[in-house]
């Protein structure tokens, strides 16, 4: 039986402010346990919170980037529950009057873009970290109080692929705002999923299962895929789906029920009396909106429009904000009005170098003028395309300028007729069969012979001239 899949995602995002949400402790990652705490984030008796100005600014930026309506009046609430990583045994969060509502994110999966609704984006604080030992548990409060945003989607996704696409698009949008590291492995982005299945003809949604403990976008997709199968099988057998929370087990690639004795939690939300509400004027919102950095999507369209890139190439370059900015610097520095060559090198050779080093084109740290210098050399036929690729590798590892490398490593293209003649002689001598083929009319033989000549010349032969020489001698 074929079922409709309905998925909603809840993302928790660490904002990369310098200090915590309600106190001035540093938010730097990886410090020694309990080294970044103070009476406020420890919830010591008598301590009081004061909200971080930049966290509020970032929150509004995210809400706007996700097309939400920023509320004019918003307040914090207390979410009350007991757990050792929560020092006050309540979390400062937002309940009925959150920062923003009713936004959307467009994902591109297939021909048409699809709008995934975003119910709300609200502000809250993170809890600490628990380390479970055999006989007890250890608590580290360094992470307590780090400012979080909770981004809740509408249950608008209808496949694990769409969910994955939502996450990658969301990450891209957030990276462009520069408000978070968005790193699931580091824990600065966490995702819980809700999934239910229903028969296509049913109007009512099926029983919702909550999935937790997924540590990567792939894990989210895998967990959802597993759930679709698990639930479909149960429904086929006529069984009911239990409304529960299930944990993703990465090792076994299955979801496991999280058996808790308690029923639904009663959080006893009430307005946080220690924090006066916020009144966010339309003027403030407009001001922040006007200062928002260009989104990845807008940049893509602009690259196509201004520099004549193809959609395909532009998409590659804007997928990462730093790369996009670097690419644009290179494109601007390139002297010709037709930018095809520099773009080809960025999405071609540069990207290959980056991938081989598990890096990104911007992180290769090649000053744009150096890249341009290399491209100009190629155009002036000072070096061959092939050599240029080797020079590029050298530029990445040594950090030196291309002209210096060309000189030092003797990469200059051989265009001298005399020298080239000598190389052609040798190649002809060693490749009699191909010579015969060429004379017999086989076109490939020419390219093969040129290739051999390039090899012999260690890539330095001028391929165009070589081609002409071969043609002349062997026709």
């Amino acid at each position, binding site marked *: 039986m074929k079922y409709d899949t309905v998925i909603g995602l809840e993302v928790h995002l660490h904002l990369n402010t310098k200090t915590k949400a309600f106190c001035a402790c540093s938010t730097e990652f990886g410090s020694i346990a309990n080294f970044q705490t103070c*009476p406020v984030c*420890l*919830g*010591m*008796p*008598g*301590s*009081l*919170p*004061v*909200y971080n100005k930049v966290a509020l600014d970032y929150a509004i930026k995210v809400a706007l980037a996700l097309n939400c309506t920023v509320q004019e009046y918003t307040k914090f609430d*207390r979410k*009350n529950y*007991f757990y*050792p990583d929560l*020092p*006050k*045994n*309540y979390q400062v969060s937002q309940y009925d009057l959150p920062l923003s509502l009713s936004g959307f994110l467009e994902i591109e999966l297939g021909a048409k873009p699809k709008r995934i609704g975003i119910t709300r984006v609200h502000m809250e604080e993170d809890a600490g970290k628990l380390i479970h030992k055999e006989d007890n*548990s250890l*608590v580290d409060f360094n992470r307590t109080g780090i400012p979080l945003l909770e981004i809740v989607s509408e249950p608008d996704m209808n496949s694990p692929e769409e969910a994955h696409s939502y996450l990658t698009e969301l990450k891209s949008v957030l990276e462009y705002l520069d408000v978070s590291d968005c790193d699931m492995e580091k824990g600065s982005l966490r995702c819980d999923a809700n999934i239910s299945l229903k028969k296509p003809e049913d109007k009512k949604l099926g029983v919702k299962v909550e999935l937790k403990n997924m540590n990567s976008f792939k894990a989210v997709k895998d967990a959802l895929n597993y759930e679709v199968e698990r639930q479909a099988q149960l429904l086929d057998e006529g069984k009911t789906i239990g409304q529960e929370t299930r944990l993703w087990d990465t090792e076994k690639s299955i979801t496991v029920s999280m058996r808790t004795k308690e029923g639904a939690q*009663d959080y*006893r*939300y*009430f307005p946080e*009396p*220690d*924090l*006066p509400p916020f009144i966010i004027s339309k003027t403030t919102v407009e001001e922040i909106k006007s200062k928002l950095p260009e989104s990845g999507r807008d940049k893509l369209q602009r690259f196509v429009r201004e520099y004549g890139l193809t959609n395909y190439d532009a998409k590659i370059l804007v997928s990462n904000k730093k790369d996009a900015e670097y690419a644009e610097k290179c494109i601007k520095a390139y002297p010709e009005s037709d930018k095809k060559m520099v773009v080809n090198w960025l999405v071609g050779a540069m990207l290959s170098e980056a991938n081989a080093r598990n890096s990104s084109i911007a992180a290769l740290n090649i000053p744009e003028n150096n890249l341009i210098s290399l491209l100009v050399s190629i155009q002036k036929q000072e070096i061959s395309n092939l050599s240029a690729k080797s020079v590029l590798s050298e530029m990445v590892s040594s950090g030196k300028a291309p002209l210096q490398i060309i000189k030092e490593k003797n990469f200059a293209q051989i265009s001298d007729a005399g020298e080239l003649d000598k190389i052609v002689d040798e190649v002809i001598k060693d490749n009699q069969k191909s010579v015969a083929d060429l004379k017999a009319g086989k076109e490939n033989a020419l390219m093969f012979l040129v290739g051999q000549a390039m090899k012999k010349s260690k890539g330095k032969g001028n391929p165009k001239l070589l081609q002409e020489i071969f043609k002349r001698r062997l026709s």
Partner: protein
Amino acid sequence: MELYTLTAHELLKKINKGEAKTSDIVTSLFDRIKEVNPKVNSYVRINEAEGASAYSGIPVSIKDNICTKGLNTECCSKILQGFKPPYEATVINKIHASGNCILKTKTNMDEFAFGSSTENSYFKPAHNPWNLEYVPGGSSGGSAAAVAADEAIWALGSDTGGSIRQPASFCGVVGLKPTYGRVSRYGLIAFASSLDQIGPITKDVEDSALLMNIISGHDPLDSTSLNIPVPDYTRSLVNDIKGIKIGIPKEYFIEGLDNEVKNTIDEALNKLRSLGAEVKPVSLPHTEYAVPVYYIVATAEASSNLARFDGVQYGFRAESKNLIEMYKKTRGEGFGEEAKRRIILGTFVLSHGYYDAYYLRALKVRTLIKNDFDKVFKDFDCLITPTSPTPAFKIGEKVNDPLKMYLSDICTISANLAGIPGLSIPCGFTKSGLPIGMQILGKPLGEEMLFQIAHTYEQNTEWHKLKPKI
């Protein structure tokens, strides 16, 4: 004349004249404490060796729910036993910055400020210096008793529903609850965050004004503190109330008001009339809802504020085999009866299914109560009521009847709900020698008016000169 019998302003004069040093005052106080504390029990965990935090100015006595760095702060509760805060409350920093110091021992209180008699203290009750069989009031009973017994020159208490004013009136001293937000709450172990304020308990009005000058002001560590300049409150210490309009809310003078209290207040009002004030009746129609609103809002906030006392980071931790057992046993054994009662009540009114009927409704009625005051203050400079419907009661009399105990807050509670300042000043005695206090309520940030009226009354009466024989 023993130094401990003097007021802070008298001692400051002596210090300036070179007739006394702070160390003399501290010694004098500890001598007095040794003499009477066993009877009055104003102070807990007395440790003479600690002395004062610095030897400068006049030592202030501090209630056990105000955090003092390195000095035990336990809210007179078992669950916070041994807690030494690693930081100082803002008011303590302000006291030091003003050139004064604190006494390094804390005053007795109802556990977590839950109470009106100081009988809920883990360290046994404090006693009323005017009659040791009677309560000193609460929850700042220790501070009030200490000031009345000359075991303290001046003290800080906290007031959530009357906890400064009521014990001040029971002990015959001056107690002020400032406008909400006037004094920083940073370092005050919270009971009800939207109602709590720290305030002075003193021998006379001048000391109250001096101490208010020191502790008031904006605190960047407290989001609920007002960013408004602090006037010099001593400038309000004038002897003149001609033309001042005083309202007498009729809802505070109903059945249940002790006759002696009623008569004493009437006499005090006559005195004020004779000094030129206009005294007229007014109405605060929603007064009857104040106690129910308070016991919903305050307990709800308290249930959340006290959730942190769980044995994890500080204080008492019960023996247990697992986490849930640790939480339940720690809180079951560590909290006293009244604390448990209030926490459970507060948890209940916030819980699913009851929130709208109780908590939300209470917040709405709170608006109505505030509106009552706003309306009346358009035409009046202040309001006067009894501070408490009865004088001090006997120790043990009400402690087993929580509802009866709650009802004794009826005169003071509304001021906390409305966020307005209230001052209690002694205005007489019962036939049996128990003090009676008069409460003056002012507009938000109207402390200056309160000081003016209180000072004028005080200068024209002798109540503040009387001392108990212990």
